[in-house]
């Protein structure tokens, strides 16, 4: 049986863990509550570039040391940056918890050397180029801009070639100093963990980090019906994305929203599956609840033959209207609950899956929920609650952004 543990250091660093005695591995990571939405547009892309720089060395380690030491522990490790968080993680065998935390904690106080910064800038520019060859990514960035407009969730995670080109090491240092305070992050672990030892090690490795007050801004969003087509005649397929308001990561309606989204757009057996994929109109179609800090949205996506662009769009929008007007049926809701519960149990069996889940819950809600509590909450959802959710969030107004060959 898993147990949850929590401790807080004097500098406000929270340490949380789910001890899973039957697992044979452990996962550990720092999640920092900072991402593209926390950037001033003049440093667009700095959160993600900084994530790379955290691997480039500390006062006592070079980049090569960090990589070699992780490899010598047999760690599977990486990091990611989103609009809202930056996370550094490692999956390891339990006996290597101490040296792994030693590296990770050291990385969280990076040297940010100018020569490393200049070299890594090339890698970031390559990553930007890589994503420019991925239509799904281009469309995602554009619809975030179209939907969120002046709200900071519109910010690009990677930044642009121009913003990265102009970024200086001094600007990055400033951004680090303003956002990487111990109270703005969480140290989480899951799996085969000795929690008391973990806290002791964290006290030693992170206890000296100075406290810092960090504020995130929460301006309002002004959703409106908008559409935008990006023409790219090199593409063979047509890509379509929708965004509309939904509940936030803090809102208890998120459980209803997850079920509603599954009914509408899971990859198997959903309404979009039957109306778009099964008849062969679109090779991809999905719809999901997109939970952010303080607000939320529903994200839809499809790709199809350009000749069928109008039909696919019309079919998708019709499904939104149908569910808004008539809600969901008991049986489809029950099937979605079962699918979501199964998926939660499967990812909950793996320490890395649990660690990621713990981090997000803590960053967004400052709480711990067991898998069982989440499943119980999911089970409480009924068709009436989904009806109420649809009154609050009627899948409108809709931002619709498309990408493909030809004019629209």
């Amino acid at each position, binding site marked *: 049986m898993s147990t949850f543990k929590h401790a807080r250091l004097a500098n406000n660093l929270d340490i949380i863990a789910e001890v899973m005695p039957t697992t044979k591995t452990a996962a550990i990571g720092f999640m920092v509550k900072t991402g593209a939405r926390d950037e001033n547009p003049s440093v667009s892309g700095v959160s993600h570039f900084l994530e790379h720089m955290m691997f480039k060395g500390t006062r006592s380690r070079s980049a090569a040391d960090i990589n070699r030491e992780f490899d010598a522990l047999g760690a599977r490790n990486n990091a990611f940056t989103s609009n809202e968080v930056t996370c550094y993680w490692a999956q390891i065998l339990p006996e290597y918890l101490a040296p792994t935390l030693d590296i990770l904690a050291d990385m969280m106080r990076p040297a940010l050397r100018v020569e490393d910064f200049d070299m890594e800038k090339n890698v970031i520019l390559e990553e930007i180029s890589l994503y420019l060859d991925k239509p799904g990514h281009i469309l995602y960035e554009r619809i975030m801009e179209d939907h969120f407009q002046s709200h900071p969730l519109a910010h690009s995670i990677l930044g642009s070639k121009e913003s990265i080109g102009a970024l200086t090491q001094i600007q990055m240092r400033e951004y680090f100093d303003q956002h990487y305070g111990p109270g703005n992050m969480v140290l989480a672990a899951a799996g085969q963990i000795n929690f008391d030892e973990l806290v002791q090690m964290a006290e030693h490795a992170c206890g000296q980090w100075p406290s810092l007050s960090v504020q995130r801004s929460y301006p309002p969003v002004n959703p409106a019906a908008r559409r935008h087509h990006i023409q790219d005649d090199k593409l063979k397929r047509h890509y379509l994305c929708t965004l509309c308001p939904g509940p936030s990561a803090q809102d208890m309606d998120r459980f209803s929203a997850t079920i509603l989204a599954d009914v509408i757009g899971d990859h198997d*057996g959903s309404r979009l599956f039957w109306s778009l994929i099964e008849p062969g109109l679109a090779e991809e179609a999905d719809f999901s609840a997109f939970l952010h800090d303080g607000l939320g949205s529903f994200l839809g996506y499809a790709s199809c033959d350009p000749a069928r662009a109008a039909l696919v769009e019309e079919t998708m929008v019709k499904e939104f209207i149908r569910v808004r007007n008539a809600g969901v049926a008991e049986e489809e809701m029950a099937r979605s609950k079962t699918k979501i519960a*199964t998926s939660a149990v499967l990812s909950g069996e793996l320490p890395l899956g649990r660690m990621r889940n713990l981090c997000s819950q803590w960053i967004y809600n400052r709480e711990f929920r067991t898998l069982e509590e989440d499943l119980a909450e999911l089970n409480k959802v009924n068709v009436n609650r989904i009806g109420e959710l649809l009154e609050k969030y009627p899948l409108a107004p809709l931002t619709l952004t498309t990408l493909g060959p030809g004019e629209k």
Partner: protein
Amino acid sequence: MNQTAPMMRVDRLDNGLTLVMERMPDVQSASMVLAIMAGASYDPEHGVGSGNVLSDWILRGAGDRDSRGLTAELDSLGVQRSCAVDTVFLRFSASLLAEKLPDVIPLVADIFQRARLPEDGFNACRDLALGQIDAIDDEPSQKLNVLLRQQHLPPPLGRPTLGVKEHVAALSAADLRLDYERRFTPDGAILSIAGRISFEQMHEIAEKSFGSWTGPKASMATIGVSPGGSRHVLQETNQVQIGLAFDAVPEREPESILAMLAVNVLSGGMGARLFTEIREKQGLCYAVHAGYQSLRTQGMIMGYAGTVPERAQRTLDAFVHELKRISGGITADELERARIGMKSRVVMNGESTGARAAALLHDMYHLGRPRSLDELRHRVEAPTLADVNKYLDAHPVQQFTLVTIGPAELAAPN
């Protein structure tokens, strides 16, 4: 609690189907894969892509359930599933709560033996397959992978698993129904199950569900000659896509572990040679890696790098330099890091029922028997530095296949 190694069992049904199982008492889930020899290499010569279209069509009703009935039943059981083809197999994979598995296996048996293949679903399945093939053109890194396999492997092993567009466009429902009769056969089929299961119960269900399944022998076209050499595809991309491949011993040869250890020195973790030399020290690209893959008859190492046109030639040259340099041998430190990385991945993959079900299938195909986690760990621990270096010396990296996609051609390394 039973802390001994997970137990495994192999049963063979009279009709040729192999059942391979592993009991994992610490989990709540179970995963299964049913794989038949209907991958792209087994597609008809002028019907490359048939297996891929069938992998969709068979899910549109089976036994006494129509398309909606079948999907609703699988969803009600919470089955996370996929059905897809690779070079060798057409496989239906599922992960779910272990207690539901006894209800799912009979459904899978219906799909593989009594698919309805409804007339009205055929055009949709074919259109979807054509759409998938077109979509590859919009994703240059995926396209590179398809082209590199085609260039490096001999036909029919190098065929694109999604199919050839002209072949798929010309398929008829009648062709595919015949193909289903011919290729959905227990000969060479493997049912792999891992999770919280009882061997006896699984055996009984498999026997009941698949025992009366009959069909012809699975057969593949004669293996031809690999095109090899180099190929450039002109396309206006932001990054030049670089793919390199060369031969290695197949997995069934005991020496394959030496090739795998060497590849991990090249590209195991972030401290490995390709990442360190090409990305960290020179900043030439974001993605650069190499991996070992094996078919039954041949193994290969496939490498990838993506970079902007201005840096592409330097990246290719640096990549080839690293591949050639490894023939000169690795150090004891490098071997130890590669070894511990591989050992800890054995344990990590051992926690996931899906990963174990796939690994058991892999072992049955390549070695004819499943390997326990202990055996996999021991295999990584056994070789000495001299063993690996002797292998590298005896198998120098000389003959590359090179495929590039981008606005300008690069100078080939051979």
